[in-house]
């Protein structure tokens, strides 16, 4: 990805192949999926908001360096579960989590685990782009700075450049790194937020409907980016768009009314779901 032109060109190709989903691509994905070890392993996770239970005994294994999509109708608990993986739910007072989530074999709800350090390893991208009201450079540098990864200077410059390059934003912003991040377009802002998450060098990136506030072209770019990122990171994405799940994910999990109904290879789930509710949702009968 050296110039803007190639970025856009490859983006178009990528979207095309993803949309056409030729059988060749499918079998390739399926074959690759088998090789991946488990990165995140949740067992019997339940979440309560005060008295109300939002998630019921979710048990799921999420493979490393793949894209896992959480799908399901609104209020089904998929975002809630996503926020368990980096313990963002801790910031909500009335929220309590039961069960066990292991990342690389270590339980993240162990009292010995510092949620602040955990969140540096498990990055998150939100529904609406939320760049800080700082310069583009400072948005990226924020994470490395608070974690003491790099001080100001050339080391920081390098982190900023690599992160922006991996997020496919470098060519668009390299001449205006010191302008406010809030001045970028919506799609650029979202890629800035992805770059910000990448900058602290996480293992896992959680994405909570990252494209729901973006137009189709910006969405295509972010999807293309997600596909590139999966070579380095384990990605979990919550999405409302079935097409998006089909385009970007290798595995999919279907949530309904706080229960995990089905987990499978994305292609298999979309062509041949085992549960009736999954079938109904995918074919658009509810949701």
């Amino acid at each position, binding site marked *: 990805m050296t110039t803007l032109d190639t970025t856009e060109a490859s983006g178009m190709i990528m979207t095309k192949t993803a949309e056409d989903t030729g059988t060749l691509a499918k079998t390739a994905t399926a074959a690759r999926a088998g090789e991946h070890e488990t990165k995140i392993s949740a067992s019997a996770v339940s979440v309560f908001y005060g008295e109300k239970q939002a998630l019921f005994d979710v048990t799921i294994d999420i493979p490393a360096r793949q894209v896992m999509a959480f799908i399901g109708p609104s209020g089904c608990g998929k975002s809630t579960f996503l926020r368990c993986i980096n313990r963002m739910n801790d910031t909500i007072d009335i929220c309590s989590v039961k069960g066990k989530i292991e990342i690389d074999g270590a339980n993240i709800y162990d009292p010995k685990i510092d949620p*602040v350090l955990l*969140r540096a390893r498990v990055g998150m991208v939100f529904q609406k782009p939320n*760049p800080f009201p700082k310069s583009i450079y400072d948005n990226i540098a924020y994470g490395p700075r608070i974690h003491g990864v790099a001080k100001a200077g050339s080391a920081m410059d390098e982190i900023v450049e690599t992160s922006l390059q991996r997020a496919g934003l470098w060519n668009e912003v390299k001449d205006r790194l010191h302008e406010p991040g809030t001045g970028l377009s919506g799609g650029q802002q979202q890629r800035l937020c992805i770059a910000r*998450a990448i900058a*602290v060098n996480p293992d896992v990136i959680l994405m909570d409907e990252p494209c729901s506030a973006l137009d189709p072209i910006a969405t295509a770019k972010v999807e293309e980016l997600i596909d590139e990122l999966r070579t380095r990171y384990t990605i979990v994405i919550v999405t409302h768009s079935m097409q998006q799940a089909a385009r970007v994910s290798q595995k999919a999990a279907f949530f309904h009314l706080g229960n995990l109904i089905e987990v499978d290879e994305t292609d298999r789930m979309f062509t041949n779901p085992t549960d009736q509710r999954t079938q109904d949702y995918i074919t658009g009968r509810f949701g």
Partner: protein
Amino acid sequence: MSVSLLFAIVLVLALVGYFLGRANASGLKASGKNLHSIPPYHGYYIALWCGLPAFVLVLVWQAAQGSIIDQILIAGLPSHLTEGTSAARVSLILGEIKNVAAGRVFGTPEPAVIEAAEHYKSLQSTASLALVACTLAVAVGGIAFARARLSPDFRARNRVDGILRGLLIICSVLAILTTLGIILSLLIESFAFFSRVPVLSFLFGMEWSPQMAIRSDQVAAEGAFGAVPVFWGTIFISAIAMFVALPVGLFSAIYLVEYADKRVRSFVKPLLEILAGIPTIVYGFFAVLTVAPFIREFGMSLGLDVASNSALAAGGVMGIMIIPFISSFSDDAISAVPQSMRDGAYALGATKAETIRQVLLPAALPGIVGGVLLAVSRAIGETMIVVMAAGLTATLTANPLEGVTTVTVQIVTLLIGDTEFDSPKTLAAFGLGLVLFISTLVLNIVALQVVKRYRERYE
């Protein structure tokens, strides 16, 4: 007849007008006519036409009557009393005439005065009779006029709306005019002052001692009107106040928004806001009786020389008064930062304190700055605390343990007691007031601009 009785009569007439209009309209409706407006509007229309002009007439009459009668009296006085005498003398004579007319006779007034007093009494009674007659005529005339215009097609509803809109405009214009009047009076007196004392020597003079010789043979220093020490005192005390209020207010706001749970917040926030409701004179007591002696004794125990009216005591208590300002503005500003900013920072592995320091405060800064500027202008204009707790001598010092004086304190002391508004001493108060007014005005405008720009950012 007293004015309040007159008002009551006009009110009753308006009420009569209302029922007249309504009954008339109801009658038209009953006879099968199609009315544009429902009957009560016909009633309102008559009532407004009856009440408003009469009301305005009474007000104008009351305002004008006194001076017109005075003019007539003066014109009627024998020439040896009025010719060649000053306006002050004439007003003394007028006062005497009115006293005599009211039966308060001191000494033996001149026959001309007694005669004028009789004249005054008769003028008074004629005037009040005329007022009653005119008012009633206007009220009844209003009813007749409005009644004549009523017809089934008459758009009473729209007319009433128009009249009410006019009333609202008049009220807002009144508020603005009052402000203009205040500014104007301030300006005029200030010009009178600046014609005696040059502007530059006032603004940049380093010595303030407004005492003037009252008689020319009196031994007294020529007054010095260098306002720098006075303004310095205001700035100094305000700075001390901000030094107290800014951290306490800001930190308590941060605690309330980010850390306190709902129950604590719902309890602490109103408590903090009670501070804003305490009368400033009570703060003054607190400063004089509690804080100042405490600082003095504490300073003495350290071997420091502390004035009994120290800038520290006044400024510190003023700071306490300002805390709710700062905390409530900061509270609003921090709460207005979207939750997504917090989430973004937490998701990067920032701790709560890091999030607050590096993300929330910068984002909320414009709002906080706006609040602080408003608080500063409040501190600058604050009078009661400093009158009680700050000193009177204008010293140019940076030592908070010494006494300083402020602009507001000087204005109060300059205007207290026997004052005549033609000596530089009293006029200096207006000069000070004008500069104070301009500076707080500028501060307020800047603050509101800052707050406005900040609002545009998140909504």
